[in-house]
């Protein structure tokens, strides 16, 4: 589904990604771990099309199509979803209005009519229930005054509504309490199918206890320096990153 080849990217002439290779097939879950500042969020943002980074080498393809020149909304229309590490606030725009706009803009891009209000409402109710969301959040301004955990749950609610092909979850677990973590992770699992794929960026094994990764990658200093199966995450949890740094040295 997603192929990243020798991806180099920089900002203000500072190279942040230094040659990333990653292949994600439909039906797979990939976990990306790595120390602070390694470039995990940068990679996620670049896949999603954030324009402030300059891709200096390499390419990104989604289902065989090079998407590296596409605008972020076009990538979204093709099924790329990013759950942000730090979701932004949009005052005065309710969660419902926002997601409605997102869905209808995506439909418009595909030449479809707006989703009938009735269907939209039904879907909103279903997905809010899936994530055990208090429905009064839906009429609040997007992320405004939301607690850290509420923001993250709202990200996954949007993912549930948009049903993306490729979902990238950037530290969705941080900020979630123990119960919320379980609810959100179960939500993600329910949305998983053999036709979509998930990239989970996390620092902790606890999320991976719920969302079982097929592959675990360690991103360090702009490169994927180690890949393995689910056991790699356990090993990192136990030993930290020092042994990898030593291996590299």
């Amino acid at each position, binding site marked *: 589904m997603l192929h990243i080849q020798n991806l180099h990217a920089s900002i203000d002439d500072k190279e942040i990604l230094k040659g990333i290779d990653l292949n994600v097939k439909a039906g797979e879950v990939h976990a990306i771990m790595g120390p602070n500042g390694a470039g995990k969020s940068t990679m996620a943002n670049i896949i999603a099309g*954030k*324009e402030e980074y300059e891709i200096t080498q390499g390419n990104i393809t989604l289902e065989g199509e090079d998407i590296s020149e596409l605008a972020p*909304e076009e990538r979204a229309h093709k099924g*790329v979803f990013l759950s942000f590490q730090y979701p932004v606030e*949009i005052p*005065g*725009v309710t969660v419902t209005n926002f997601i409605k706009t997102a869905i209808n*803009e995506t439909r418009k891009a595909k030449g479809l009519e707006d989703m009938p209000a009735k269907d939209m409402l039904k879907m909103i109710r279903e997905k809010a229930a899936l994530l055990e969301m208090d429905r009064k959040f839906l009429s609040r301004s997007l992320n405004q005054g939301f607690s850290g955990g509420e923001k993250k749950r709202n990200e996954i609610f*949007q993912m549930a509504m*948009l049903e993306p092909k490729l979902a990238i979850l950037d530290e969705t677990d941080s900020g979630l309490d123990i119960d919320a973590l379980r609810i959100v992770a179960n939500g993600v699992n329910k949305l998983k199918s053999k036709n979509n794929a998930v990239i989970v960026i996390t620092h902790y094994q606890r999320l991976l206890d719920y969302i079982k990764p097929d592959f675990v990658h360690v991103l360090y200093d702009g490169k994927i320096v180690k890949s393995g199966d689910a056991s790699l995450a356990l090993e990192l949890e136990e030993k930290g990153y020092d042994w990898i740094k030593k291996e590299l040295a």
Partner: protein
Amino acid sequence: MKYTEDDLEKELENQEYKYGFYTDIESETFAKGLNEDVVRAISKKKNEPEWMTEWRLEAFRVWKTMEEPDWANVHYAKPKFQDIAYYSAPKKKPKLNSLDEVDPELLDTFKRLGISLDEQKRLANVAVDIVMDSVSVATTFKKTLGEKGIIFMPISEAIQEHPELVKKYLGTVVPIKDNFYAALNSAVFSDGSFCYIPKGVKCPMELSTYFRINEGGTGQFERTLLVADKGSYVSYLEGCTAPERDENQLHAAVVEIIVMDDAEVKYSTVQNWYPGNKEGKGGVYNFVTKRAICETNAKVSWTQVETGSAVTWKYPSCILKGNYSVGEFYSIAVTNNHQQADTGTKMIHLGKNTKSTIISKGISAGKSQNSYRGLVQINKRATNSRNFSQCDSLLMGNECGAHTFPYIEAKNTSAHIEHEATTSKIGEDQLFYCNQRGIDTEKAIALIVNGFSKEVLNKLPMEFAVEAQKLLEISLEGSVG
């Protein structure tokens, strides 16, 4: 492509005025210039009674002694008052009962403006009194209103048919001497609307007037007089747009509202006059005096969405004379390119337990300047009075300006006054977040702007809110490539 605020600004510059056209209905226009003879001629043209002519002449004499104010935060070439034609009327001056009788070209104009009358009539249940180039050419729904005893007609007709009412109230809220533009308006106003809601009557429909300026070089001096008798209610809508012209068009309107005991008036405006081209050339000068006086337990709400005009000078005000009276001001002002707006309100608390609310949302883009100027005055007698003011500014780009000038005068120690102000910018992160969800930047800006303006948009009547929302989008359209 990287999208920056610089790009945004560049795009905004290229925004074209949507409704840039004008019709060539034959007009009869007075020669340019203003003197007592011109004032008399206007009055004669309208077949006015003696007292009206005298009233105009007095206003003209007062005006001559006054100077154009320059305290507002706007800069423009002062209109050459002797270079303006003070009267212009369509030559085919029809008195119409139905749309079939309206000049087809005029109807076409309305259609292009998206304010097709028949649609309005059918769908919106709105009585429309169109003011086209200073003379009303169609009045609808008169009958329904008539049954309730509601008077809604061009002010020129009201002067003929209800002289006692007009004489009693005209100039009582905005006196001739009030200010330079009000004096000018009093001398030369060509038309406008008159509305009277009898005691205890709730007006069953939104009353609306569409204003347009159509004749290049003629000033438009509208006069609106609205009287809500005891215990009555009315919601009044006013909206306008104008054809593109290459010379400045002066507009100096006066709106007077009298709200008697226990009555309530909602006055909503959507203003979209030609703002000038991207170099700041042309565009309408809009100097408006709007004021309401509230008796005991009366309430007035001003709601306005201002997107047009090159220069706007406008402060809908409330005189809270009666005890327990309430004044509200909800405003969205959008400025783009070289537009300048100095707008706000005055809340004058005279009665006890009076209450006022001010919500002002300023959106500035391009090289525009957007100022909020508000006065909250609590007088000695106004025990237990309250005001809440909130002024929010949203900036797009780095060359525009947002300014807030709140003046507070409290002469009674029991006054309770709260003022909040915020300034924000549309952030790259907000745009990227929206983009990531499939919403392109143009739509994202519209979404963010609508969210920012929501508290005010919510105050508009339903069908107007939709129109206003579209207008905000249009005003900021073309803001991305």
